[in-house]
């Protein structure tokens, strides 16, 4: 092979190199660091080289750590409840607002405002609203004539409800805009065909619109699920995991293990468990779309072949 030909063959790799460098330093290095740390008994006062290598002990500890189990369970419960509520509300709103009314663009912008507020601010905002005596909720309840307000943040059941409400308030708009975008790109003629075929408005929604939006909705659902598993700031500010462990989601547990208990190795192990779980979700989503696409392409190619 001549030198020119070899240089030509290497050119693409040269152009890829900067991206590869960024990827290695920004992504692979921290993850590798974290995986390595999860095998160490490491406190913040030590340098990483001084920490003792303990193998899988941190992971073994997690298996028997009932607080971690509790957090794991709270996280799954939280993610499941908020994502379900947000999907129902977001898609419902999109169905209601998918029409040309004057001022709709302003309304849409207003709807997505909560998403744009920093989570810490959202947490503080809701903490004041949930305040047992001066918060707007309890003042309103009392003005209706009830003697006692709701113990929003001091009762373990109510505090879970409180964080769910705050999360739903912040993230429903995300599903709303994605659902709306999906709805507006639906083939108009298929809906007209359904109308001529005799479908009512409700049948058009359940038989045509929702099934056609399904690919977008599945991806939206997974994105939200991944995000819900990692939620931290709002809950940190609202309840700090309490009362007890009732709202202590995994991210908060990891944060406390590292900050309060000074167990960096164990925190890293927890992070890796969370990472594995999210990775499984992501890969599942990826495979789902890939398989669907490949199947359609294969069948179509076969069909074109028989025709010509």
């Amino acid at each position, binding site marked *: 092979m001549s030198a020119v030909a070899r240089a030509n063959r290497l050119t693409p790799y040269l152009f890829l190199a900067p991206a590869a460098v960024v990827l290695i330093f920004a992504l692979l290095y921290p993850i590798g660091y974290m995986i390595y740390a999860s095998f160490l008994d490491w406190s913040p006062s030590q340098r990483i080289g001084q920490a003792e290598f303990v193998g899988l002990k941190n992971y073994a500890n997690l298996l028997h750590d009932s607080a971690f189990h509790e957090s794991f369970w709270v996280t799954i419960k939280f993610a499941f409840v908020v994502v379900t509520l947000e999907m129902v509300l977001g898609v419902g709103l999109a169905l209601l607002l998918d029409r040309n009314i004057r001022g709709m663009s302003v309304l849409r912008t207003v709807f997505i405002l909560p998403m744009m507020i920093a989570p810490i601010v959202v947490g503080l905002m809701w903490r004041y609203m949930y305040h047992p005596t001066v918060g707007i909720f309890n003042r309103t309840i009392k003005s209706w004539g009830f003697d006692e307000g709701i113990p929003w943040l001091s009762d373990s059941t109510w505090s879970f409800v409180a964080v769910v409400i705050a999360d739903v308030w912040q993230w429903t708009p995300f599903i709303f805009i994605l659902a709306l975008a999906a709805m507006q790109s639906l083939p108009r003629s298929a809906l007209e*065909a359904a109308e001529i075929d005799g479908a009512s408005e409700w049948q058009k929604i359940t038989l045509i619109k929702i099934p056609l939006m399904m690919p977008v909705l599945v991806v939206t659902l997974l994105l939200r699920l991944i995000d819900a598993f990692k939620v931290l700031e709002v809950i940190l500010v609202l309840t700090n995991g309490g009362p007890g462990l009732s709202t202590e989601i995994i991210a908060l547990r990891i944060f406390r293990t590292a900050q309060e208990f000074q167990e960096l190795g164990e925190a890293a192990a927890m992070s890796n468990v969370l990472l594995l779980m999210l990775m499984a979700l992501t890969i599942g989503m990826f495979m789902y779309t890939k398989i669907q696409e490949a199947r359609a392409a294969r069948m179509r190619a076969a069909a074109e072949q028989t025709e010509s």
Partner: protein
Amino acid sequence: MPRIRLEGLVKRYGDFEVLHGIDLEMEENEFTVFVGPSGCGKSTTLRMIAGLETVSDGEIFIDDRPVSHLEPKARDLAMVFQDYALYPHLDVARNMSFALRLQKVPKAEINKKVGDVARMLGLTDYLHRKPAELSGGQRQRVAMGRALTRDSSTFLFDEPLSNLDAKLRGQMRAELALMRQQVQKNMIYVTHDQIEAMTLADRIVVMHGGYIQQHGTPEELYKNPANKFVAGFLGSPPMNFLDASVEDRGGELFVTGAGFSISLTQKRQQNIQKADLRNVTLGIRPSDLRFNPNAPEDASLDLKVVVSEYIGAQSVLICDCAGQKIEVELKSDTPIGLGETLRFEVNADAIHLFDREREVAL
């Protein structure tokens, strides 16, 4: 099957009127084709009949029943869309049975009907495919099948063949003509393709600028176009138009222009005298000119051949007639050479005269 009548149908978008009072009557079991260039209002008219567009003014009657306020589903129509409008998430069988399932027709009956229609359209092997897994021609057939399965009294077609390639389009056109013989229904078909219109229609409605230009059988429209637009729109290659005037030479009428002077037939002379018009447009179809060096001067055109387009058995000559372009269709084996000036005999019975101002036929 029902008679459909349009009475003073008007469509406005805001202040902009796109249809200006359409009056039309379609007989039972008639295949009516709306044809015209884009933006002429043909699709809008069809969509108003379907109930997909609101009626701004006027009324649509199906068997004397006014329907313009009714939902599409109450009008007993089936429609085939330009982009097929199949339900992408349902397989072929469920696409075709969608309407019947909504009507809660018994399952056995649905299966029988879908099976029958699929057999007729050659879709039996594809009943469990999704639309994305079908080729263009197959999708087109499914769209057709979905309309047929419904068994409604009227079929609407909105440019159903325009998304297919030329070869497939010809094939589907023939299949449509065949289906037309098997299915006795009202059919209303919109197209911009005059060949589709001519080959499929019982009656053609030519539209232009939101008005009906002419309504009649393909033969009527081809032989006696009501105006210059219809004359130029139907027929391929299109009719030639030459500026001319009518001259009286001792009681004999001649239509003369730059480089020609053709005597008119008796019958035509009577019509012209009544109207007493001088400035006209002469229309001659390319197929009504015949190469004949010995033709008399008052029944022929002398044309200089500029370009010859070889199509096969036929060739189209693009010629120059004293500065005006004119096309001639003739057998390819006619011995002609580029650049020559040749004499072509005009079929005097087949010439068309139009008022140059108002463009109506004389």
